[in-house]
């Protein structure tokens, strides 16, 4: 509009246009139409204005603050505090500008927390949890996502390091893992670990982050001997071969192994660590070790996510060894823990198909496999704890009432 005002002095059309844009400030569509008309009537503009007119159009195309972006944060927080999560979430879901929302959190959110001094601790938790919910919706808007979580983190760390705060950090870590922003994850883990030193899930999150940096895993790796791999520090190269990025990635995987070996004994995360360790051993070709770890993970765990992945990786491993029968059995077993998981289903169907068991392969594929929404632990493998997000946010909702 300011560009238009500059034009206003020189052009009658621009003057008229600016006036109309101002009067139709909430009707962007019509305003843009108006400017397009102005451009079409370009002969009435001096050449300089011909250049500026598209700029005016671009200016008008810039998204204005929508009513949804101007959500009332105080009302959202109050609804959430009163247990009306649905109302609060629907209002958050209507937000299109999360940057504006974050600014509102900083202004009216803080005021809302301080408005009731006797209830400040709980209000602080409520505001931090709502920021978490908003960040979940803004996961594709990186800046707003980070700012919302940082605001919530700062807020919740003002109280004592209690169980709700621990849950909040676990949920935040899960969410950041879902955004695959490794640097931000490490930043947040520093804050979280300063409050809860030695928390096993935070240690595991660091290892998962390191593993993500060497993503994706190679397909059908080749088996090697332990002595050979150890002697070369993970760099297994035929004589005369120049190391490539692929080899560097395998070396990084090799370096990650000691960290996971240390975590095997941590309470609560042992089976998951073994499962991930088994996958790492598999990708660098130490199949015997891999199989041992995967078997132990399957024995020790009761988590369907871990049970599925341990069996699924074992299926891939057996296939790499040429044992199709073993691979089919392992994938079938994996699917007992996550029926319809696409990864194991396609792996199993392709093995059956290649073994001329077409009808079985077709049956596997026809069970609603290609319908989005089916749970597949493999797709969440690199997202770490994000699989626990529903449970964690439910717990926080219950605590914040």
């Amino acid at each position, binding site marked *: 509009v300011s560009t238009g005002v500059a034009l206003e002095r020189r052009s009658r059309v621009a003057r008229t246009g600016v006036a109309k844009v101002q009067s139709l400030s909430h009707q962007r569509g019509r305003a843009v139409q108006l400017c397009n008309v102005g451009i079409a009537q370009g002969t009435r503009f001096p050449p300089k204005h011909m250049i500026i007119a598209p700029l005016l159009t671009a200016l008008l195309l810039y998204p204005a603050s929508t009513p949804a972006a101007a959500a009332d944060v105080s009302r959202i927080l109050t609804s959430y505090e009163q247990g009306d999560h649905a109302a609060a979430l629907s209002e958050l879901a209507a937000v299109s500008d999360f940057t504006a929302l974050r600014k509102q959190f900083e202004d009216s959110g803080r005021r809302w927390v301080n408005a009731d001094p006797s209830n400040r601790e709980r209000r602080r938790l409520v505001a931090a949890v709502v920021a978490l919910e908003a960040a979940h919706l803004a996961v594709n808007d990186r800046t707003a996502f980070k700012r919302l979580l940082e605001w919530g983190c700062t807020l919740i760390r003002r109280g004592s390091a209690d169980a709700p705060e621990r849950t909040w950090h676990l949920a935040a870590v899960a969410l950041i893992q879902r955004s695959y922003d490794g640097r931000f994850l490490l930043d947040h883990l520093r804050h979280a670990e300063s409050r809860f030193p030695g928390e096993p899930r935070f240690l595991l999150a660091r290892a998962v982050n390191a593993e993500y940096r*060497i*993503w*994706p*895993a*190679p*397909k*059908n790796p080749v088996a090697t001997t332990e002595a050979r791999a150890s002697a070369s520090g993970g760099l297994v190269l035929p004589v005369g071969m120049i190391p*490539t*990025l*692929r080899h*560097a*990635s*395998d070396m990084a995987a090799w370096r990650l192994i000691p960290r996971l070996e240390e975590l095997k004994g941590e309470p609560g995360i042992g089976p998951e660590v073994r499962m991930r360790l088994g996958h790492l051993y598999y990708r660098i070709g130490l199949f015997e070790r891999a199989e041992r770890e995967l078997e132990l993970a399957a024995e020790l765990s009761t988590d369907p996510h871990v049970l599925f992945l341990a069996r699924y990786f074992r299926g*891939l491993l057996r*296939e790499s060894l040429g044992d199709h029968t073993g691979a089919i059995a392992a994938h079938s077993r994996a699917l007992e823990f996550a029926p319809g998981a*696409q*990864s*194991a289903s*396609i*792996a199993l*169907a*392709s*093995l059956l*198909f*290649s073994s*001329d068991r*077409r*009808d079985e*392969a*077709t049956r596997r*594929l026809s069970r609603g*496999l*290609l*319908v*989005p929404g*089916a749970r*597949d632990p*493999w*797709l969440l493998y690199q997202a770490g704890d994000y699989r626990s997000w529903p449970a964690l946010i439910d717990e926080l909702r219950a605590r914040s009432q």
Partner: protein
Amino acid sequence: VTRCAAGIAGGVLLAQAFAAQAPQPPTVPMFKSGTVDVVVPVTVLSRNVPVLDLTVADFDIMDNGVRQRVRELDPRTLPVDVTLIVDTSGSTAGILDRLAREAGNILADLHPTDRYRVMTINSFVTEVMPMQAVSAVPLFHPPAGGGMSAVYDALAAALMHPAMLDRRHVVAAMTDGIDTISTIGLARLREVAKRSEAVLHVLLVAPSSPSNRSNLLLPHVERDLAGLAEVAALTGGRLHDLRPRVDAKRRRSLSYCSDALRCADAAASSRSSDDRTAWSALRTSSSITCSSRWRCRAICSAAISARATFAFAVRLPNGSSTWSCTSAVGKRRANRLLSDAP
């Protein structure tokens, strides 16, 4: 008329006289004899591409070892089932409009009797439109892009889709070929392609942005174009390079469902079914032997039991080899693939 009536009367009397003099034959079972036309639809494929220009002389139908006369060959045109795969992962998110145009070109080529379905590739392989008739002008708008690429998984899922008895199955996959999260590798995909009844055409496009291209430097990100071309060739299809730097002539939208794919050779045999031994054995035999580099789809008509076994031989146009096999025709899957030896 008088002479004719006298002749008939004489004939009748003569017959009665012979009947009176002849001894009574022993009681033997009487069979009604006749000719049954058996239609044996058959498709001869070389790497999933029909072998055309076959004549009656190229077919021998053996019914339990008894050679049957092939009366006529009736070439037919088969409708096509098209599985359209569109890569909507992060690496192609910037060219979805172009992919939609290419998809529209392919769908516009379909005949009213054809069918199509649409699958998308990202982290998850999704069937966004199930197999359906081309009733109106088919429209397809790819969903918003993003995520990782399960290219090999999508191709395998499409190639394993069973073909209908009376239709061809063509898979047209528009992708940049970058795979980051598939379960299966190229080796397994090759095995699937060898056995698939579908013809795969890969339409290769460039990644949509420089940042996506730089992802190719990441270790273990697969983009084995030669491997993909080999997989397509194994099914009788090919890889079409639609990247901008390729000659404009090759960038044109291709007619993937070509008429050649629609053609089939249907052999109709006329058999004299006096040989009851052969006929009954035909119903009970269950042997399957086959060895050839050709693939053959044989469809048994209702004239033969649904679970019957029949044999036939095909001499291919080059005349170098005579091919023969015996096929068990399943109740539902009569188009069982008989041979997949490389």
